[in-house]
């Protein structure tokens, strides 16, 4: 602003021009500094709480327990069967949960996108409300529903369908059901947002040209919805990899996922090097998946957060 007033005050041309350019540059620099000053407290906090500790942990992970520089913390991932089992479990759960989210989330997002505005916004409440309910509350709810003396089992026994309670909680199925419930909105919201942008004229044109409803969906709508689906899938998968609360509470100690392993190695065994190495690999895998996605689709996966 003041740069412009400087510009107006000075008569253009002549010796004033140099002075003007200098004043403008100085003003732009001051403006940059002011904006940086506005950003600096936030940037400092993020730097101190996220970047510094992660860098520190990375540094720690490069030394073995004797304090010697080594790759032992990383090598053990390939050597010890228990680590391999943790990774296998984690990816297995991540694939199943992501698949379940797609199977449940796609029809829901499709329905929401086709409903009239008013009905859609009412239905959306049912997606957004769980999204904003504590993960702990929802995990507790599933524990109540699925455990040995829980609702499902007592209903089924009362109805005479089963005589012995099914083991639904404290194992893989409990973890998968709980995580699917918690992560479903992360798939539905970006998918719904992208489906809303699909131009109905394209569908109408297809139907005009003689395509039936199924063909229109398969050949026009579905391909156009794929970018939205992809961003939802990436977010859900990445969140699965680092998920802690639900597997810790519903896994019954049998389903050890990546994040639980990190907690155990650091809190229980105080092996910071090993825990840090796990964290570094988790971060690298997460960033690689997000980076790959961004490179393939040119979109930012974090967009989902702005739709909350």
């Amino acid at each position: 602003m003041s740069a412009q007033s400087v510009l107006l005050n000075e008569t253009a041309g002549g010796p004033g021009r140099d002075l003007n350019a200098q004043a403008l540059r100085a003003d732009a620099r001051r403006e940059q500094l002011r904006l940086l000053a506005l950003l600096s407290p936030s940037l400092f906090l993020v730097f101190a709480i996220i970047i510094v500790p992660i860098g520190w942990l990375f540094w720690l992970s490069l030394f073995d327990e004797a304090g010697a520089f080594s790759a032992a913390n990383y090598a053990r991932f390939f050597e010890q069967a228990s680590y391999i089992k943790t990774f296998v479990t984690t990816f297995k759960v991540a694939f199943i949960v992501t698949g379940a989210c797609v199977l449940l989330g796609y029809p829901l997002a499709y329905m929401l996108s086709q409903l009239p505005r008013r009905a859609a916004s009412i239905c959306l409440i049912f997606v957004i409300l769980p999204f904003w309910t504590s993960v702990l509350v929802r995990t507790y709810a599933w524990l109540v529903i699925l455990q040995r003396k829980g609702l499902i089992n007592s209903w089924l026994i009362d109805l005479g369908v089963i005589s012995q309670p099914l083991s639904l909680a404290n194992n893989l199925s409990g973890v998968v059901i709980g995580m699917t419930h918690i992560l479903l909105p992360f798939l539905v919201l970006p998918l719904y947002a992208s489906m809303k942008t699909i131009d109905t004229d394209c569908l109408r044109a297809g139907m005009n040209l003689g395509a039936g409803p199924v063909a229109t969906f398969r050949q026009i709508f579905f391909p156009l919805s794929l970018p939205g689906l992809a961003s939802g899938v990436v977010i859900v998968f990445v969140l699965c990899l680092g998920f802690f609360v639900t597997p810790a509470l519903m896994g019954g100690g049998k389903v050890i996922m990546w994040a639980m392993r990190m907690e155990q190695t650091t809190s229980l065994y105080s092996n910071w090097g090993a825990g840090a190495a796990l964290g570094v690999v988790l971060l690298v895998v997460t960033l690689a998946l997000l980076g790959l996605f961004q490179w393939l689709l040119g979109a930012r996966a974090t967009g989902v957060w702005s739709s909350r």
Partner: protein
Amino acid sequence: MSEDIGLPISHRQRLWLYCLGGLVLLFLIAPSIIIVIMSFSDSTLLQFPPQQWSLRWYQTYFQSLEWRDATIVSVKVAVMTVFVATPLGTAAAYAINRGTLRFNGTINALLTASLIVPVILIGIGTFFLYARIGLNNTLTGLVIAHTVQALPLVVLTVLSGLRSYDMNQERVARSLGAGRVAAFWQVTMPQIRFSIISGALFAFITSFDEVVVSLFISGGETTTLTRRMFNALRDQIDPTIAAISTCLIVLSVVLLSVAQIFGRRH
């Protein structure tokens, strides 16, 4: 013919889709509803629907010193987080919105880092850092950690408000002689205040519901509600938690409704 979708498909042909979608919606909402109903049960057994109704679990919750203290800690931390994260996030959003900064992309990535970095890593890292500087088990430490978690949500919410605001209005105010602060406070701020309030509400709920980082850095006198709930759930399923959960669900509903109302006015 359905005029709503403008396609020659009737709602009747779509019936299967509505059924399927309805079932998924039920899957999403049923657990919360079941918990709310069960919190009014009189029995220690998990029965649904409950045979006898009572408020005994709410009494246990409000009378237990441990639960009460944990709730107070969580409320304190959440309120302080709102008062730190909202101004910081608003200032950051304002600067980013100018778009004239060099490294705008890097700054964006840094500010949204806490959404991308696995929370467990942030938890362990923060604990490790706090152990060195003596911030574990302190309110200050919790507020700082929660602020970092809440910042991206505030920034994104305020940024979306700023995007639909015409910055020229602030420029006009300044050319008419208003100072920088006065121009922001009197012209910009009233027009983006609903986004700022929404951002503050999101910051509150983010802090209040945060589990993983609190598990690592809170304890003793500063045990948060979520940490105590997590530990209680590890041992056994105590129906008191149904009452606490109901309170948390009600809190989410209230905050979301307020955010929604402000969003509409915006």
